[in-house]
């Protein structure tokens, strides 16, 4: 899946989970520069992404992610392996 489409879809998921309808997500977005992206919200985001794309993350994979761009890359790897 194209990374720009993925970013757009993730933006929709983030807006819903974080209750920020105007949130603009970029590849550089991370928990430090997105308001209310705390640990519980993070679990909710990961869960929503797993459901949306029918993929599973390992804890180690998630711990290596620095930002949304890394998440997009990981999702693409997971989707390609399906």
């Amino acid at each position: 899946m194209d990374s720009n489409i993925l970013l757009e879809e993730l933006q929709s998921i983030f807006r819903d989970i974080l209750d920020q309808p105007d949130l603009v997500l970029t590849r550089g977005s991370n928990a430090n520069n997105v308001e209310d992206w705390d640990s519980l919200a993070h679990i909710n985001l990961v869960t929503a992404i797993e459901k949306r794309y029918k993929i599973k993350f390992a804890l180690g994979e998630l711990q290596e992610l620095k930002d949304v761009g890394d998440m997009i890359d990981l999702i693409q790897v997971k989707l390609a392996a399906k």
Partner: protein
Amino acid sequence: MNEYRWSDIHLGLKHEFEATFSAEDANAFAALSGDVNPLHVDEAYAIDAGFPGPVLFGMLTSSLYSRLAGVYLPGKYALLQGIDLDFSSPVHAGDVLHVAGEVVFMNEAYERFEIKATIRKADRKLVSKAMIRVGFHGK
């Protein structure tokens, strides 16, 4: 009380139980929550509004979802993280409520699972349905 840990949880794991609330329970809930809406505590008002008696608070009957997670699924080590809840029909004091929940999603990375749960009356009429997100404490 169950003492399930993450390794005990699997898709399809179920639990169910029954419960009943009294008018005294509703009054106690009104006092605790401060929700003194007459539909829930004033019989004459509720009848005038078209109900056979005071309607039990939705949040009171929904407290059974807390019991489902905290006592049964997974029980002792539960850490309730969220509930999406919809109400479908009113409940009155004395109604027997049947609570049922089933594990429908597991997040391996963060060891959190989701329970699809319902509360139904004795005639199987749906009272409410919920998606409950539960993790663990005390690992």
